[in-house]
């Protein structure tokens, strides 16, 4: 949007949670933070990761919603649930392969990152990527990413046989065209068309 895209690089994350704090300050969903933040395994490592919604090209959450409450807009953003329609059934919470949507009990609504739509729809940058002190969450032009980072943006993921392409990019080592995390996705099973090119 306005030439900029969203890039996630968890290896840069320092776990400061600035993204979580700033997220609830934007005007779309004041007071509720939509970042998914994890300590990977604090006993073993200080590694942390913060994620936003991946705004999939064919959003699973929207496809499984029985109330037609999740829409993908023309600029590619997948909105949070439409307030009058969401019935709090949690289909989307269960279906999303990235685990992004959350059922917020006090409103009985699904809420998720909408890339600070009040900001990005007018050319401003989303709160999380603006404040992130390590730029693990970055919202810049593709040219900037190409010029400044050695990792390459990837937006194709395999979850078993399901191929998902997203609007948000994950930074991955150069030469990684797609991201698959299931070993089965790497196995050669003959000339089966469902085997992804995940190597």
């Amino acid at each position, binding site marked *: 949007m306005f030439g900029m895209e969203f890039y996630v690089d968890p290896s840069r994350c320092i776990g400061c949670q600035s993204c979580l704090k700033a997220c609830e300050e934007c005007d779309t969903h004041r007071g509720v933070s939509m970042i998914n933040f994890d300590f990977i395994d604090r006993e073993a490592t200080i590694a942390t990761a913060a994620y936003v919604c991946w705004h999939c090209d*064919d*959003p699973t959450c*929207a*496809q499984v919603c029985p109330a*037609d409450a*999740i*829409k*993908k*807009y*023309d600029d590619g953003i997948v909105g949070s649930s439409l307030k009058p329609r969401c019935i709090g059934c949690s289909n989307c919470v269960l279906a999303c392969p990235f685990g992004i949507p959350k059922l917020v009990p006090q409103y009985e609504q699904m809420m998720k990152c909408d890339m600070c739509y009040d900001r990005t729809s007018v050319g401003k940058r989303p709160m999380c990527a603006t404040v992130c002190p390590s730029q693990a969450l970055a919202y810049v032009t593709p040219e900037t990413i190409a010029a400044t980072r050695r990792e390459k943006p990837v937006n194709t993921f395999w979850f078993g046989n399901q191929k998902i392409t997203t609007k948000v990019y994950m930074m991955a080592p150069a030469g990684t065209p797609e991201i698959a995390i299931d070993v089965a996705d790497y196995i050669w099973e003959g000339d089966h068309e469902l085997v992804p090119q995940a190597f």
Partner: protein
Amino acid sequence: MSWFRKPSSTPLWRDEFPVFTADERYVSRRQFTKFLTLTSFSMMVGNLWILARSTLRRPATWPRVPVAAAGEIPVGGVRTFNYPAADDPCILVRTSAEEYVAYSQKCTHLSCAVYYEKAQNRLECPCHRGFFSIEDGSVLEGPPQRALPRVALEKTDGQLVAIRMEGGLV
């Protein structure tokens, strides 16, 4: 319903409830309300336009149209004429030796032609039994709500001339 839809492998509900706003066919409440408002507004504009046209169509100066010679019409007699334009029918009545009155002939109810009923000394409309006073054209009875517009007359050199219409929209 299915015979109006092209054959397709995706189920009907996917068509009708698309995830992508770009594919939405059903009108949203907002769009419908917008439509209603715009239509209503344009109708109002249209009406205002018609009103403006009518108002502006009033001649800046009233024409002088001779109607009849002074003695031509007998007392209680009638002459129809057109004033101010050729498609505005009017009616002249000689009510006494000296007095003549003239009104628009279009009944103010639904524009039927009114006639002079000598016996009752009033103008009557045959369509819906509306009756107008001969003195000032006001409604005596019946469905008309407005008085007949009056045509002002002038007697000049023995000629009766219509000089102005009063009380009408036209």
